[in-house]
């Protein structure tokens, strides 16, 4: 008799358990199906739209990496090769040369090379660049805007929620498809190898 009721209890519990399992399986399946509908094949990475960027300087501080995965990129085809470069020289620089006191970049990451009179080429040393956007601000205010910020996809750890995107005041950072991971300024860069 007791054996029988024990058995019944066991059966009842087993029934409850298997039906809840079924319900939960259905739940996850349904949820998965619903989301799968919207899921896109292919991955996403974070990128800055340089035309939205307002050069606030937060990219240097908010990234989970030190130094930031955001680096200054130089679109050479946009550059005017100015002697008086708004991105390289501090406003009110005493002289137009490579002396440290004249440089805008806090880490001296911009290299200035003489090309021919009166043109200079500017290149970025990415290892030194901290993504502070000081040069970008200078270049966009006084120059062609060829210096711009991009997230270096080689360095970026692709956080689920980009810490900089959250703090970006101009919502310039968004997820872009993995196949087209940059929003580089200039024309020639569009045709990615």
């Amino acid at each position: 008799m007791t054996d029988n009721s024990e058995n019944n209890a066991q059966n009842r519990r087993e029934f409850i358990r298997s039906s809840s399992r079924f319900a939960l399986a259905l739940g996850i399946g349904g949820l998965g199906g619903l989301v799968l509908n919207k899921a896109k094949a292919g991955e996403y990475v974070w990128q800055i739209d340089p035309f939205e960027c307002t050069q606030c300087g937060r990219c240097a501080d908010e990234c989970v990496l030190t130094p930031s995965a955001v680096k200054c990129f130089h679109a050479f085809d946009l550059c005017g090769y100015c002697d008086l470069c708004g991105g390289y020289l501090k406003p009110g620089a005493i002289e137009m040369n490579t002396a440290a006191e004249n440089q805008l970049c806090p880490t001296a990451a911009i290299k200035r090379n003489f090309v021919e009179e009166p043109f200079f080429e500017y290149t970025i040393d990415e290892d030194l660049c901290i993504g502070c956007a000081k040069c970008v601000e200078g270049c966009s205010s006084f120059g062609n805007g060829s210096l711009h910020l991009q997230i270096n996809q080689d360095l970026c750890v692709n956080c689920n929620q980009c810490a900089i995107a959250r703090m970006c005041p101009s919502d310039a950072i968004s997820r872009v498809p993995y196949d087209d991971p940059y929003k580089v300024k200039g024309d020639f860069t569009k045709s990615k190898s």
Partner: protein
Amino acid sequence: MLKGRLFKISSVLFGLLVSIVTFAQQRFPRPDFESDYKTPTLEIPEPRHGILEYADVLILLIVLLLATRFVLQKRSRKGILYLSVFSLLYFGFYRNGCICSIGAIQNVALAIVDPSYAISLTALAFFMLPLLFALFVGRVFCGAACPLGAIQDLLIIKPIELPVGIRKSLGLLPYLYLGLSLLFACTQTDFIICRYDPFVGIFRMDAKFNMLVLGGSFLIIGMFVGRPYCRFLCPYGVLLNWMSKVSKKHLTITPSGCVDCRLCERSCPVDAIKKPVADPVSKKKDINRFLISSLLIPLWILAGGYVVSSAHVYLSKANRNVQLAELLISHPEIKNDPDHIDVQTFLTSGKTMQTLLGEAAQIREQFRIGGWILGAFLGLAFGLMFTRKTIYRNRTGYEPDKGNCVSCGRCMDYCPVGKPNFEELIKTKIGTQS
């Protein structure tokens, strides 16, 4: 000489160009170089190959399958241990802890409520696979595949048994955390699970100081209280717990029948071993308590919903748009502060105050509705906890608590049943325990 003149010319040019709105593409046209200067190409480093993301899913699947084999067939604690070390190294230190199943909750939630949000298949797979495995074989993910679990598990030195009351009350925190993270994710406010992940900074070897302190304290506490994050915070653990409770198969402490030797009693670092019930409580009293606490559940739900939704104004302050709108209303003079980045960006963006206020009001309304849902959910969890306390079951042997067991497999090691030196184990060890 030449330089000085050029400086003057370019200064004048600057003045002109800055003051006059130019529609030209470039302020300074690209020079025609006379020398054979070649424009360098801009190097754009490629991201990690996309195929590798799918490799992560495959590796997760393999780890889960192996863990299932180690838990159910091989009954090998060692196997689980090695798997968890591998997961810690791969998903943790090599892949820097992103993406993980815990954080994927938010992606899935956002994908459901926001039609424009495209979730990656990897995130979806990371969310689904451990749940499906939990539904059939228990929380093998926690034991073997989760890097956050692994880092805590490996540092367990001398776990103490927590009193039931503390365990149960702290056990409600994950519900709160899950609810809040869903609320913040669905309102596009923040991904708090990722932001306050205590170990991801350690995986990246690059943590902000406060997060390092948080992660460090979890690890130090974890030496004596097994897996504190998993048990008292992990929001994904809540879902896994539900699945695992009704799992088809599950880790068993003993391979055949329990001999009540009590060797496994202290082996579980997460207090997930149910002891035999010696004398059952009187059924009559039991049923009354059960009925009362069940009838109270709707009240808990209403109370929870009311409380949380009335806090929606405070909760919504976490949203940056709401924050900005509030700031501009309460301190209008901040518009003159040139150093306030958010305010200045807003002022120059051309967005009207009205649009911002509209957005903020909309988000706040979402928080109000979400607050009701979150509160009701918490009330339900609270009520069910009390109801569950009134349910007693007669048990003869030692069994794992299927919901809370993380399948680390320690108890299997302790169980003498079926081991060649069975007699010896029973004799030597039973004497040392009172």
